[in-house]
């Protein structure tokens, strides 16, 4: 009886998540009356704004990942190595973006870095892009920090550091040749999550007036019928591809294969 109930709960849950996706996909294929077609996808992929905004968001995602890795890996490493007592505070700080809405963060940025402030980042495209990267890194912080911290937990960070030091390694070598390669899977997990977040993010990009993929989806959604559904399917596909890549990287990593 318990087993049947479990299956019922599972099926209901799956229907709850899958049915809207099936409906949306079906709708995105229904642009041509009476037959299924990829017209909506062709239209979108042929739209120069799609390529422009998607390219911009990919660029922002890569910049965010690089910034996030450079910020989070040394921080998480140092906290584990030298400041373990500070971990609960760091965890609390990294969780803040989950409870503080993006709109609050971006309004804070605009207020702090507007053209009449002491650091007028919003006064130029480059400055605003930079601000957007910082904003994205903040949004991705809970995922990136947790992923890296979990990766570090599997290592004896202290002993590996001391072993490397006794062999003559400085901090840079330890971080980039010992620690980072050993948490690479965790870093990549965080990176793919960051990528998925950045690609679909709307609030920050819209309020900072940047030509990102999120605002493009919104504009398209306001003016077209079938294309937004196709775009949503594409966005889901990108997210799932990221998740799949996390799994793939985890399985392919040589030195942590089962049997270790």
């Amino acid at each position, binding site marked *: 009886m318990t087993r049947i109930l479990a299956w019922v709960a599972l099926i209901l849950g799956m229907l709850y998540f899958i049915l809207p996706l099936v409906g949306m996909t079906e709708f995105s294929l229904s642009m041509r009356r009476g037959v299924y077609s990829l017209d909506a996808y062709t239209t979108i992929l042929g739209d120069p704004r799609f390529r422009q905004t998607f390219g911009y968001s990919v660029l922002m995602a890569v910049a965010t990942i690089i910034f996030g890795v450079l910020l989070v890996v040394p921080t998480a490493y140092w906290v584990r190595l030298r400041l373990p007592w500070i971990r609960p505070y760091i965890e609390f700080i990294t969780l803040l973006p989950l409870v503080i809405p993006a709109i609050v963060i971006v309004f804070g940025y605009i207020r702090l870095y507007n053209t009449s402030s002491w650091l007028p980042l919003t006064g130029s495209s480059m400055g605003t892009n930079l601000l957007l990267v910082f904003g994205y890194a903040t949004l991705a912080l809970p995922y990136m920090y947790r992923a890296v911290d979990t990766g570090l937990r599997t290592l004896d960070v202290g002993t590996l550091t001391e*072993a*490397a*030091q*006794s062999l*003559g390694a400085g901090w840079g070598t330890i971080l980039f040749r010992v620690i980072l390669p050993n948490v690479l899977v965790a870093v990549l997990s965080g990176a793919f999550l960051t990528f998925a977040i950045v690609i679909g993010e709307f609030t920050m990009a819209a309020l900072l007036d940047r030509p990102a993929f999120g605002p493009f989806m919104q504009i398209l959604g306001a003016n077209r019928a079938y294309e937004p559904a196709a775009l949503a399917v594409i966005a889901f596909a990108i997210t799932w591809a990221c998740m799949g890549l996390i799994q793939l990287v985890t399985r392919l990593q040589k030195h*942590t294969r089962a049997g270790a």
Partner: protein
Amino acid sequence: MAYLDIAHLEKSFGANRVVKDFSLPIDKGEFVSLLGPSGCGKTTVLRMVAGFETPSAGAIRIEGKDIVPLRPNQRNIGMVFQAYALFPNLTVAQNVGFGLRIAGVAGKEAQTRVGEMLDIIGLPLAEYGARYPFQLSGGQQQRVALARALAPRPRVLLLDEPLSALDAKVRVRLRGEIRDIQRRLGITTIFVTHDQEEALSISDRVVVMNAGIADQVGSPFEIYNRPATPFVASFVGTLTPFEATVIDPRVGTVMSGGLTMNLGRPLSAETGTAVPIALRPEAVQLGRASGREIILPATAREVEFMGSVIRIRAEAAGQSFLLDTFNRPDAPPPQPGEAVEISFSGRDVIVIGV
């Protein structure tokens, strides 16, 4: 002048003094073990030599130069850890070559050195070089860790309980290999262990540490046979302690529990003073034996079969004696409660700290 000179080393964590005025001159090529129970400060001394802890006071000199101000990566001191600490993302060859690459040794020379090191530890480059640490057994991993530590030709090698994580047979084999490699390379080595058998079997000298202090420094023979303090006597090996009163210090006669013993050597204690004495189990014989002039009727109380040796606790003259006898398949040991005779010589009695 000592090659490695540890002088008046102190270390405190807050109000807790874990190392107290520790001094130890070590000659070049010497193998010295720091032996003691958990928390005695032996690992802290090792970590100060490595540079992972900063001494509260004192100096550590190599060839007369104080290394305390140097960072761990500037000391050229190799270290092997209990947990192996191989880099999981690197192959065996890359692990061994790690220190060489940092030292700027590259190309053919580095490859040759890695090959040499792997040959020394008995894991040939062609067969093991491309393997990852997870593809090796614990003993093999520790060998690789040793090769990795030795590859950059360090001035001193530190071994922090390197055998503790291994099973008994591998431990015995590997400790012999470590000693052999150390002798071949002539590298000055400090070995930290809480296992007395390990320390006694492979060291030139043993430092027995207790509560942050070096209780006794000496050869394994001296440490075992002439313990300087009650702690060393109780920590190293097994013994039966007695309280005795000095009868005649000139000829070394003492009395314990109505039993008069002649130790065959003069004592520095005065007549009538109490001295702690002890007997090793191997000094007491089951039955009579030539050269063992003290013969006592006894009752076997406990019999412990340990393989090649049988340990018996027997009561005689109102005292409890531990004795070891070799296992002989044709002569079964006595049963508990059985009447036996035991014998020993006064010359085998250890006088602790006198």
